[in-house]
């Protein structure tokens, strides 16, 4: 038994573990803010974002790359953060769902469209779908239904049956076209 108080598995300097776990330094941008941290090489990006950066909107549904709930953008590309190690994104720019809404608190048109079209129920997959949609619409501003199905095929929703998600993506595409929203800045 070991009663020593635990400090944090990402910050080796202050760790009171008696085992020296190896760490590496990573520096990256998360939602526009620079983050520097000491991390274990085995630390998943999903856990890094949730535990170290406080971006708990990154959801973890399967940890083996099927469900897509953990999808974030890494340098603009939709990426499953459960299949990515934090050390792999050193120097990269990461966007999570928390980085979408405007500074004034207004929902991003994609978020607003998901709301308007009732494209979420339990909501656990929603962060991943919103981020996958962001990448899709950055790449294909005016997707047809088939392109939407293809673009979101790496994400699973267990509640909505996808019908309303398709409608939300189409609505978001229209809104973004109207608003001339900045896209693909990464």
């Amino acid at each position, binding site marked *: *038994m*070991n*009663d020593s*108080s*635990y400090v944090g*598995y990402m910050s080796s300097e202050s760790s009171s*573990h*008696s*085992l020296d776990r190896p760490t590496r330094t990573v520096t990256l941008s998360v939602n526009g803010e620079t983050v520097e941290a000491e991390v*274990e090489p*085995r*630390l998943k990006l999903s856990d890094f974002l*949730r*535990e170290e950066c406080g*971006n*708990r*909107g*990154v*959801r*973890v*549904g*399967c*940890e*083996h790359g*099927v*469900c897509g*709930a953990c999808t974030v953008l890494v340098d603009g590309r939709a990426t499953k953060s459960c299949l990515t190690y934090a050390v792999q994104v050193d120097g990269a720019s990461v966007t999570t*769902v*928390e980085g*979408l*809404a405007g500074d004034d608190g207004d*929902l991003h048109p994609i*978020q607003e469209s*998901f*709301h*308007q079209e*009732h494209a*979420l*129920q*339990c*909501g*656990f*997959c*929603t962060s991943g779908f*919103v981020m996958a949609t962001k990448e899709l619409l950055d790449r294909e501003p005016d997707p047809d239904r088939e392109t*939407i*199905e*293809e673009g979101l*095929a790496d*994400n*699973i*929703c*267990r*509640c*909505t*049956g*996808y*019908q*309303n998600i*398709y409608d939300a993506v189409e609505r978001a595409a229209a809104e973004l076209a109207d608003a001339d929203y900045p896209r693909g800045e990464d």
Partner: protein
Amino acid sequence: MSGAEPHSEAAPGEDVEADQESFVGTGLERVEDRRILTGEAEYIHDKAPEDAVHMALARSVHPHATIENVDTSAAEDHPDCLAVVTGEDLQADYNPMPCGLNEFEEWSLAVDKVRYVGEPVVAVVAPDRYAAEDLVDLVSIDYEQHEPVVDALEAREDETVIHEDVGTNVPDGETMEFGEVDEAFDEADNVLEREYSWGRISGVPLETAGVVAEYDTDDDAFDVDCNIQLHTLVDDTVYETLGYPPEKVNLEVPPDVGGSFGTKIAIHRYCVLAAVASQQLDGRPVKFVEDRIENLQGGDMHSSDREYRVRLAYDDDGTIRGVDTWFVDDFGAFPRYPVNQALKPLSVVTNAYDVEHVRYDYELVMTNKTSQTAYRGFGVPAHLHALEMAVDEMAHDLGADPVDVRQANLVQPDQMPHKIPTGNVYDSGDFPEALDRIQNIVEEREVCEGGLLDPEVVEAKREDGKYRGVSYTIHIEPGVSGSDWTDRQRTEDGALEEREREDVEELPEHFRIELQEDGSVQAYLATDTSGQGHQTLVTQLLADQLGVLPSDVEVGYLDSVTAPTEYGTAASRMAVMLSGATEGAAETLRHNCRQLAAEEAFGSALDDIVYRDGGVECQQSGERLELHELAELDSGRGQRLTRVQYDYDHPTTELPEFDEALTQKYPVYPTAAFAANAPIVEVDTKTGEVEILTFYSLRDCGTRLNPTIVDGQAHGGLAQGVGAALMEEFQYDDEGQPQAITMFEYLLPSTKNMPDIELEHSETPSPFTATGAKGTGEGGMIDGPVAIASSINAALREYDFVTNQIPMTPHRIRQRLRETDEGE
């Protein structure tokens, strides 16, 4: 929390309805969405007290083995190890978990024996989950393996009994007869007998189980934050196991739960283990989040896995005379809490058909597999599949069109309310009209040039080996389960005969409202939620009932200690029970506001005061008080009139139609939502693949309180129905090893598999419920699989093909086609 405050329960009196526009019946946008869309919603996985430590579980790798030795010394020597819990530790200080059948003893960690792959044996605690999993690798368990019991049909006669003390692999079963079954079968022109199989399928919500438990050393009590479903009903599975009274074990469920579909009813093991570990660690919070492999292989969340034998007695004119079903349900290693899902099909035993003579016969079988829990539909989907496949067979035998056979046997609208042989009562609906309408819609839109069933296209596709077809089927969704019948299998033999109607005890739905000082309305649900939009529903209802804006209403949740024991979110209860409770509480509050004004302000008689548009008015003087003024008036009083609670009784308690079923503990489901379905399928006879081109579904769930949410439930239910019909299954190999332990093997429908869904509606209000609403949370999963299977039969009609297995995977379609070719 509100629990400490006195609440009044004044009898509702006369008042005046608010006369603003109605929010109920509109697709009010959900109040839950914003926090979810911004990532701010706090699911149980997100709960992280600063000093929390993390638990991981060492699980059995064998399906059936005696535990020879458990060596945790290497784990304990590891510097990261904070605590180790074994089955022996639990035996010393705690209790076994309550089981669904009385004679079983199951510990939260295996003792002496393991009975399925994935059964937890040792719990370890470390500062973080990564380290905890390192410790799991250091736990060494020696086993002596036994022959696994894998096949449910063989298990019934197997020499190997997996619970020696119980002495049989078939611990529960019953044969029930309604009407004159043998006579009906003797007298009918024809009898057919067929076998059907329903695979091991379940909900697989995207969020796995999770818990953060904290032991309070001062109070000798536990706080257990978790995503358990029915936390005010099944909290006994946690406090009884810990050996504490209910008020010492507080279960709290976050407002956002990432789906459950019934499967999280039975996660008490995790709650107990985290609580035990926290107690060992003098109150340090202990967190556990099930990972996906744990969830799929040993997460106590598989569901119905049945082998059916169906006999139909029918006359040459297509009249069904009798139904006789027998099934074996593979319940896995332990009879989990909701064993009564073997009984729910009794509530819909004849589906939409008027049949008087019914035999219902089942056996629950124990095997070396993960235990079952509830899943959307609660045992009904498998029954409807077996019954309707037999009806398709019957139509084939008669050389008739299946839709004509179905129409000929439907309950007619003038027979409503209609008592079925098992005592349940269908409340309302015009089944023949619904079936007719969906057929007309599809024929008009699709059996025409340019349509999916354009005869020329259908013919051309056939030359490619692709067979298109559609079947028109109709299905009942029994809603709003009673609670009294659910322990039928734990009721002593003979006790049922002596029961009187007064012995029936139904659980009401509990609800609270508190008027805030700023005039806003704080409501509390006593149930938990996993995506159904209950906060929105309650907001709509209260806005109407109290004459306020939706933005004036806040909806919170009660924990298990504050709330009374009640049923909660299951069995499609909420639209009816929650709306009833909300309306009752609002009525009480309106009355109390009038009384408060009479006593404290206007000095006039109660009858002179009306409640109107979010305030009360004295009709004589014209004086008016707004809600915030009423809250202020009330603030100094001991007995607070602006804090009300209400318990809405189950609808059957006032309906003598249900007396017989209630007294005999047969399932009572007082609402009959229904769907007439027509999925258009294309079967590739070369590959065995089934594509659903469009799924037409006409759905009726009575009054729709929020049509947007109702449609969302239909879409989602049908998606799960598509998964069940074609791809989902927890298979085991002959050695008892689970074959679907990742999402690469347990296949969920994605955007690539989901067809377009064309919803049509009708609205037949329930005469049995306060709002006319019927329960509708489970429909698509209940009727989707059978509807798809029947359409596959229609597409392959020329092969005389009837599906005999769910899911119908490509491999099974090809195999069945070969069998059919060989004239089997």
